[in-house]
């Protein structure tokens, strides 16, 4: 029962893309935003301005986590299976590593958000780590939401790469189309049922924590989908 841990260690043989790169990407995005905030008129260097203007720059780290999810399956699976890991252990170890990274990086994001808040947006009214509604609560709520969000995009990326492993490019195209179809059908069904106001009320009443819960459920669904897909993947 320790194979999944060996799989996680195996991924960490190349630590840079997992531990360092997310922060390189985030730092680059931050510096660009900081630069433009500094050059902005001084009237904007206030907490009041920052409260209503968001760069949403921290989203780059979510995008990067999606990318890691893709490459961690695509590049490392063949040798992992050759070493004698089962697909089950490989998937469990990889997902566990992704979740652990999401926990750690989510905590760092919450800490940076606290600093941003305490310094009135790094002294120049920059709103990089805050986002209204979803990332606007106390630090532990930001931690929770960031962690769930990072884990969600990670397992989404893993599922894409697993589909590619099993059915190659045709599979990925079909998989993408299927997602569009599912969403479209859901929208049409809601529309024909005249249920939009109900949906509106649901989301209007939904707190950030509630939305985080929805994300967590979605992540669990994607995780199960990837697991079902990798069971018959070949290398």
């Amino acid at each position: 029962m320790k194979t999944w841990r060996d799989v996680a260690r195996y991924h960490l043989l190349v630590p840079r893309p997992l531990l360092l790169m997310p922060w390189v990407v985030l730092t680059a995005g931050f510096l660009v935003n900081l630069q433009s905030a500094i050059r902005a008129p001084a009237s904007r260097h206030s907490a009041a301005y920052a409260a209503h203007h968001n760069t949403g720059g921290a989203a780059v780290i979510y995008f990067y986590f999606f990318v890691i999810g893709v490459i961690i399956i695509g590049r490392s699976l063949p040798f992992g299976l050759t070493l004698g890991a089962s697909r089950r252990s490989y998937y469990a170890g990889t997902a566990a590593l992704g979740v652990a990274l999401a926990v750690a990086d989510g905590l760092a994001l919450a800490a940076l958000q606290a600093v941003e808040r305490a310094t009135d947006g790094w002294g120049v009214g920059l709103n990089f780590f805050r986002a209204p509604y979803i990332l606007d609560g106390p630090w532990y709520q930001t931690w929770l939401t960031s962690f769930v969000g990072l884990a969600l995009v990670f397992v989404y990326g893993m599922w894409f790469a697993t589909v590619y492993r099993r059915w190659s490019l045709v599979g990925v195209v079909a998989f993408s189309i299927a997602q569009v179809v599912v969403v479209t059908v859901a929208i049409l069904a809601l529309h024909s049922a005249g249920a939009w106001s109900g949906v509106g009320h649901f989301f209007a009443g939904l707190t950030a924590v509630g939305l985080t819960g929805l994300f967590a459920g979605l992540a669990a669904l994607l995780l199960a989908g990837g697991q079902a897909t990798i069971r018959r993947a070949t290398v």
Partner: protein
Amino acid sequence: MTPAISVTGLTRRYRDHLALDEVTFEVEAGSIVGLLGRNGAGKTTLLRILAGQEFPSSGGALVHGGRPAENEAVLRRLVFVREDQTYPDIRVRHALLAASWFYPNWSAELADALLADFGLPAGRMVKRLSRGMRSALGIAIGLAARAEVTLFDEPYAGLDAVARQIFYDRLLADYAEHPRTILLSTHLIDEAAGLLERVIVIDRGRIVLTADADDLRGVATAVSGPVLAVDEFTAGRAVWGRRRLIGQSSVVVVGALDEADRVRAGSLHLDLAPLTLQQLVVQAAGQPAGARERTSA
């Protein structure tokens, strides 16, 4: 005793071709077996199924009595070295380190010794290795794992003759100290012949020959000389190929020759040359479909 490898009615069908067709054989524990056949004969598919990397369409393969796919009890006792292995962006020593975590009998000393033998730089990125060096890395992992079942699929692509000899020597030396079951697929048949205790010849997805290597020595003999003398000598015998060239003829006679045969051949001024393992495999697997004639010895 449970055989180390037991394959029954194993079939693997891809959309447009049949890679394995009702393959059945067993390999006893503690032997070195050659898996021989032409390109595309199905050797790699067979080994991938044994290693749990591919799934059968029907039939099955058991390793130490268990199905390999998704079965870590089996996978931990098995190592598979494949010619086309892809590695993540890691260094040579990382690949060996990872292998040491997964194989319970891993020998770090042997891995280091093999690295030195092959001149493999431990700090080099695997993707920067030449083809031969990459093969050497696979061999180092395959031998140092000391897994009970060791599968080598064309392990020495790109390796020079000296390095191949190192592989044979190391394999035999370590096998003597740590017996295990080794299934070796190779094109360099005569080179590996001395190593093999048993051979399995596969052609177009079917097993065409399984035999002890000793039993194959002298099982067929090329008889050559004047046409008339050859015809006289081979009359009534099972023969494989027949080649003629201006008054001379060469015929492969199937079945062992006794002393009286040799004396007679000498008096007829015939040359006798026992077929090498490679020539036998060419006979067994080298014929176009449907043209295989009189292969019963």
